[in-house]
């Protein structure tokens, strides 16, 4: 692992950038701004490694910037810098995205960050029916995680265009169904992550669905 300067998010010095160009001061401002719009609760963050790297795959909706806000929310929960994949490489948007923790959508870029012990969020492709359906997961990025020797975590995100409440639920690390010697491992693991996210979404439900009577055992809608 390379020597990188590591700080807890709450201790990061202002007026500096880290080894990937992330600006902690700007990230803190963006987090406060995001809090005005969303009230994100994070679950399952105890499953993430404390010091090692990890790839977190989230479900996305078109134009929702889910990986960005999931990275902010998880970063706050685990008190570690969390990066997201998918910044463009043109100024000023790309430069801004790099300052808030963006990485290029390139397996070598993501692999380098994971090998250096960073947490990285990547979005699955947007589903066809909103966030209920999880799109494809980039197997090349999953392959980069395997090469870096880090785990891949499925994470379900749920939010509403109208309400403030949002949820990020991180599952246990996905495991490839069988051992392979070649590149099939990354393909199968990518499919497994996709399934695991769908399962998490099913367990999560939509935050704004459910009725006031959900908790009643006799209603047949919820409860034990």
């Amino acid at each position, binding site marked *: 692992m390379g020597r990188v300067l590591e700080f807890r998010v709450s201790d990061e010095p202002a007026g*500096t*950038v880290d080894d990937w160009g992330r600006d902690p001061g700007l990230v803190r401002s963006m987090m406060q701004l995001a809090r005005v719009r969303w009230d994100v609760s994070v679950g399952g963050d105890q499953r993430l490694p404390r010091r090692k790297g990890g790839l977190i795959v989230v479900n996305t909706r078109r134009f929702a910037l889910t990986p960005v806000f999931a990275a902010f929310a998880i970063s706050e929960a685990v008190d570690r810098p969390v990066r997201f994949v998918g910044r463009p490489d043109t*100024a000023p948007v790309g430069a801004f995205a790099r300052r808030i923790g963006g990485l290029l959508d390139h397996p070598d870029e993501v692999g380098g960050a994971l090998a250096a012990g960073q947490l990285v969020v990547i979005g699955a492709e947007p589903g066809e029916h909103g966030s209920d359906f999880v799109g494809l997961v980039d197997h090349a990025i999953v392959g980069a995680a395997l090469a870096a020797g880090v785990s891949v975590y499925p994470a379900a995100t749920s939010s509403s265009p109208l309400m403030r409440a949002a949820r990020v639920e991180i599952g246990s690390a996905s495991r490839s169904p069988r051992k392979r010697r070649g590149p099939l491992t990354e393909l199968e693991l990518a499919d497994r992550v996709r399934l695991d996210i769908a399962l998490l979404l099913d367990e999560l439900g939509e935050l704004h669905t459910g009725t006031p009577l959900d908790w009643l055992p006799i209603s047949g809608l919820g409860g034990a």
Partner: protein
Amino acid sequence: MKESRRVFISGVGGELGTLVASLLEAEDWVGALSGIDADPPRRRLHRTAFHRIRPDEHDRIVQTVVDFDPHVLVHVGVWEPDARAAPHLAATLTDQAATSIIGAAAECASLEHVVVRSGIEIYGRARNALTRPGESAPLQPTSEWGHTVAAIERTAAQVGQRVGVTVGALRLAPVLGPHVPSPLGRLLRLPTVPFSALADPPFAVIEDRDAARAFVAAARIGLAEPVNVVAPGATTALQAARRGRRIPVPLVGPQWRIARTLSHLAGAPIPDHVAEVLHRGRLADNGRMRSVLGVEPEATTTEVIDRLYHWPSIIRQPARVQVA
């Protein structure tokens, strides 16, 4: 490595070369030490035999190197554009030195190992280039200095293959030090520091002493691959200017042409590889520095930048005896 190795250092007159030589003098595995440069060493060397030879004096270079018959060649003799020479002259001098010195070393029967100075400019900063490239990243230099260091690595690798010796390349981040002629360092020490208003990208540097320690480690272990030599952490031109209490000047598009002219007039020309740092940034993965070389940089990028602003300016001392 066996004791009493003969080590030859090219570029021993430069600050980095002198530092490498002084550190090698303290190594117990090093026997005889010899070095060449166009200028004399910057400090007193006790064990190193110095030969003052210009890079275009091929015959003298070949004779000196062959007579010494080194086991290890440390090639630090490169000219960064606008550090000590204008870009075109720097490229010519670097090419001449690389060809004649590495070529001469290839004629030596005892040669076992070559270490060359390269730079992280070798990765280039084209669009969608990796933010923090590792040693296995594709080499796509986008500046004159990047092409120059790529040519040095190529020449050394060809020679290594032909004569069957190991070749290691140290890809240095911009080297800063109190006496190192660095175009980036000079620019950052100006009273006003230009930065890209739209990007202000991050870059990393390395202190001269850490770079010299990396050369000594590479020579000791017989490094046979490229390794990035970069201090941890990063900074931007705006942040550096603020740390040094300089006036940051945001620039966009054509304003850069004027800024480069003014900066040149102020004694701090901005060659294309430094302009690239200011527009596109320059970082590299330093993981193998510890795992392969066993060297941990003593100073982070921000510490090197802080020290840059604390190094005293030129102190002029009148001669004790006026002779003219």
